[in-house]
């Protein structure tokens, strides 16, 4: 058999730039004490591979870093409890996986940065801080080693960053595209919050979790709320709630 042609490029220019940015951001988070949580509801072994990569490096002398695969049937509930402000959540999943879509839009309320690895149709702009996407519609991609290469490179580049201590302590606001009004993580309209406890009465506040912790929030403007509802919080009051399906302000 003869296969003399050049193999197709597995990582193009844009993806290599995305990998570089994600690696530096991840190194900065680890440097500040982050744990890396990994979900892959459709392809659980990839979640375990990412976690073991960081916890038990294949290259002697590299730092062991905290990383855990979350493989419960409900990854949102599991990540909600596990995540602390400053952590990072990485998903290996298609853009259409409703569990991961939900996880990614809630992560800012938990103070977590997000990295999304997948293939096929890309997630909507701003869905995650870093999107590392295989530009292929072949449904077999998850079994061909493309994802393995992706998170191997993420690990390798992250450890390169540790050799540049001067660059690890700089502020990092994440990489979400802030091109329109639905970007809630940094807009002036408010911070994303997730209701922990509904108000006990019509005049009492709700307990709401935001990137900085739990706080009492006045919800009289948005009406009755339930645990899990996502709100935009500004100056101690909920200004609006986010639509359950699209994540857009309603």
């Amino acid at each position, binding site marked *: 058999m003869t296969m003399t042609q050049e193999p197709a490029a597995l990582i193009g220019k844009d993806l290599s730039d995305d*990998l570089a940015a994600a690696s530096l951001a991840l190194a900065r988070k680890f440097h500040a004490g982050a744990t890396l949580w990994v979900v892959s509801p459709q392809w659980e072994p990839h979640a375990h*591979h990412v976690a*073991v990569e960081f916890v038990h490096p294949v290259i002697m002398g590299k730092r062991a870093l905290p990383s855990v695969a979350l493989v419960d049937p409900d990854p949102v509930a599991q990540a909600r409890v596990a995540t602390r402000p400053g952590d990072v959540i990485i998903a290996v999943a298609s853009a259409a996986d409703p569990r991961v879509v939900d996880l990614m839009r809630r992560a800012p309320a938990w103070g977590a940065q997000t990295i999304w690895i997948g293939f096929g149709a890309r997630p909507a702009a701003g869905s995650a801080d870093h999107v590392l996407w295989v530009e292929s519609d072949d449904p077999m991609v998850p079994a061909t080693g493309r994802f393995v290469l992706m998170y191997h490179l993420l690990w390798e580049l992250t450890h390169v960053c540790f050799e540049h201590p*001067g*660059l690890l302590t700089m502020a990092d606001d994440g990489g979400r595209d802030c091109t329109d009004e639905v970007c809630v993580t940094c807009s002036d309209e408010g911070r994303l919050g997730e209701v922990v406890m509904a108000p006990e009465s019509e005049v009492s506040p709700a307990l709401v979790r935001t990137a900085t912790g739990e706080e009492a929030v006045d919800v009289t403007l948005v009406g009755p709320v339930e645990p899990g509802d996502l709100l935009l919080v500004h100056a101690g009051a909920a200004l609006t709630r986010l639509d359950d399906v699209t994540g857009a302000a309603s």
Partner: protein
Amino acid sequence: MTDLNQNTDFLYPFIEGTEHDPDSLLLDLASSARGKAEVSARLQQASLEEYEDRLRAAGAEMADRFPRGGRLYTFGNGGSSTDAATLASLFCRPVRGRAVPAWSLAADQAVVTALGNDVGFELIFSRQVIAHSRPVDMAIALSTSGNSDDLIRALTEARRRGLLTIGFAGHEGGAMSTSDDVDYCFTVHSQSIHRIQESHARLGYRLWSVVQEETQRRTTALLAAGRSDPGGNR
């Protein structure tokens, strides 16, 4: 000493903690990512070319075994255990094609920890081969060194019981490449564990593709024979 460091900082911008502009690092990282991906792609292609004939032969043998009730067991350690699980999923839960019975022997934490604690880590897979297997079954082991004791023991046990044994190795192939207990050994010639695992995935995918093609060919022949001989010997 402090003075000396300050005076020579400019010579070592990447070593000292005074580096503040991430742009050059980001360029280096992106370039490094593309370079490593190219190395991986070339290694995958070279491995596919080297082993195409052997992959076809192994896949044909597997396609003979599945219709007779054969089951596939995959196993490895660490990252390779997850690659073994991905390979098992490819066989038993493919997005397209026929599904056949396969599972990863590292998947059950109760079994793995029970065996590791009671009889020793080197027996975690071979004891499962003893418990589960029949001669018609198949075993695939993945090890970047080719030397993992628990895998070698399981392959030896599998061969003793008549299973088809396949090993994916790396570096120089290790014990797996010289063992008489391994019917097919695919050694990826690299010193990088990461690049070896990426090629293992690609070779495993090729092996699965061959099994699918061979299964399709056998099914087509079976159906054609059925049409020409209605009410034949079923």
